């Protein structure tokens, strides 16, 4: 699991740690946005913005979609639109649905455990303020 590679090794690099954490979560979020049906890139970005606090540089989502497709988790099709140019719609493959289910389960267990672990840390911080 990549979580093991997300190491907050250097005390002076919390930004890098957070960036890696976000990047890992973003793949799952991109898959999750397609659970209900096909979307094109900009729709995925707007969906993630409105359904989560994942503020993302818009450029980062496209290479991730490209990689998920290369891994067979997504398929894509070009659809003609009124805008005058076609749009590339993505949808989950069966492998993608399975992977997303596994990810969702692992994520829920993992974050539930961590939240309990972090409860005292966050409480103390609030008491100090």
């Amino acid at each position, binding site marked *: 699991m*990549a979580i093991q590679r997300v190491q907050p090794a250097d005390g002076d690099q919390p930004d890098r740690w957070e960036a890696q954490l976000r990047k890992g979560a973003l793949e799952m979020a991109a898959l999750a946005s397609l659970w209900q049906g096909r979307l094109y890139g900009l729709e995925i970005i707007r969906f993630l913005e409105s359904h989560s606090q994942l503020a993302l540089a*818009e450029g980062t989502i496209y290479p991730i979609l490209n990689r998920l497709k290369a891994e067979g988790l997504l398929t894509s099709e070009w659809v003609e639109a009124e805008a005058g140019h076609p749009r590339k719609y993505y949808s989950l493959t069966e492998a993608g649905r399975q992977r997303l289910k596994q990810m969702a389960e692992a994520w829920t267990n993992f974050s539930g455990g961590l939240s309990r672990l972090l409860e005292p840390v966050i409480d103390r911080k609030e008491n100090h303020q």
Partner: protein
Amino acid sequence: MTAETQIDSYLTALRTHLGPLTISEREEIVREINAHIRDSAEEPGASVESVLARLGPAEELAAQYREGFLIRQASRSNSPIVLLRGALRLATKGVFGTLIFFLGLFGYMMGGGLFLTGILKVIFPANTGMWFKDGSFVFCGSSITPPGPPAYEVLGMWCIPLALFAGSLILVLTTAAIRASLRASQSWQSKL
């Protein structure tokens, strides 16, 4: 600069930096980013400038696409050069990759060396083979000065099929091992 020339120069820069990808993959990416720019520029309050700023520099966007491409491409290849290049890219990511790279290099050298020995036996039969002395191993391979008596050669012409077979087997196993490692490294990346 007008909006059109801004879009054009962004897409040209993107295309340039996507160099290592195949043409069809590259053109599909450019087409998708083009659609993104035009769609989001039409949103209320947006402009081509703000859209391009949010996308980030074309060079960085291309770098994110290239990341992993070499490894992905290598994991489907049979060419030692492409596979070793993929393993070398993996080596920049950690100890596991470095290990795979050197094991791969070792495997290709062993396999290639054995294969060569099989061919050399045909050309220099007296200089190639496996020598024993008093029941223990002395030398195997091909040499300008092969061991003389009391050392004796044990394989004879069996050396040819044995060396060719063992050499091919090691080459095939090395190829399969590198490909499997490259694929495994990809699936780690995509998990959480």
